């Protein structure tokens, strides 16, 4: 009896110790290093979800790459939606701060991206809720870089940072 109680005690103690190590480490890893997420919707077709509504891709989100808020034109990033803070959106970066971008359906024809902001767009024009509807988005809402497609397995690939040539900024800061 006494022996089984001692065993129980040891077991609970080990469980608690493991729990308090594993949970914070897992949470920190998912918050700071990388996590996976399923992409819903057609806004990034044909790059993500090419099959329409039947298939949804799973992407790897790299938080470590986004820790200093450094993005390049053409990167695919996930952001906190400015309309609904509980929702994340995944878009392609079109222009950085200081660039002048030609918009598609925004209220102004040309927009200069203010300091600390970026211009993001979905690849599927017209079917995407992006900067053309809400304007430049603050870099503080940056959540992570999408770097790889993990699922379905036949589509396993690295997501390249490509900017559609027709979407190059009209004028950019470096020139």
């Amino acid at each position, binding site marked *: 009896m006494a022996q089984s109680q001692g065993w129980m005690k040891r077991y609970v103690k080990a469980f608690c110790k493991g729990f308090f190590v594993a949970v914070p*480490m897992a949470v*920190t890893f998912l918050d*700071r290093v990388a996590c996976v997420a399923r992409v819903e919707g057609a806004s990034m077709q044909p790059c993500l979800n090419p099959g329409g509504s039947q298939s949804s891709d799973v992407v790897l989100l790299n938080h470590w790459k986004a820790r200093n808020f450094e993005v390049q034109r053409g990167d695919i990033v996930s952001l906190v939606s400015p*309309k609904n*803070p509980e929702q994340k959106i995944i878009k392609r970066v079109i222009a950085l701060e200081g660039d002048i971008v030609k918009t598609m359906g925004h209220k102004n024809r040309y927009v200069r991206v203010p300091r*600390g902001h970026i211009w993001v767009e979905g690849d599927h024009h017209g079917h995407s809720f992006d900067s053309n509807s809400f304007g430049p988005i*603050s870099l*503080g*809402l940056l959540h992570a870089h999408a770097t790889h497609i993990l699922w379905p397995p036949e589509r396993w690939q690295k997501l390249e940072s490509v900017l559609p040539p027709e979407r190059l900024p009209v004028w950019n800061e470096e020139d």
Partner: protein
Amino acid sequence: MLRGVLGKTFRLVGYTIQYGCIAHCAFEYVGGIVMCSGPSMEPTIKNSDIVFAENLSRHFCSIQRGDIVIAKNPSDPKSNICKRVIGLEGDKILTTSSSDFFKSHSYVPTGHVWLEGDNLQNSTDSRYYGPIPYGLIRGRIFLKIWPLSDFGFLRDSPNGHRFSDD
């Protein structure tokens, strides 16, 4: 000898990672101690006061009008700002000072909040850069720790007239 040193090193690294992770979780989800600088929240919070901020109400989306929040600066994501929430989404906001002859109003869009400092003369806030997205809010300040003579919950806004009527 070597084994002892290696074992000690591994244990030290392990403890560092473990406590680092616990600290991350605490600062991210529960709250932490913050030092405020700048004149924009005077007289409620003075320069270099130390306050306690909690992050739970951000996660439960229960930020209310009149709360003092810490948010990321919309034009510089690496710095933080400390302001009072004047309006939530859908509120009608007076964008000019109330003594101006021409009054202009605007509505706060969905998913945004309107922030203003208590020191209206010396504050860069939503009157300058517009409403900011809710996602930029980091936490809510509710307790002042330092200076000790001022210890306690924070005072209500001295600019009560700035709040919308409805």
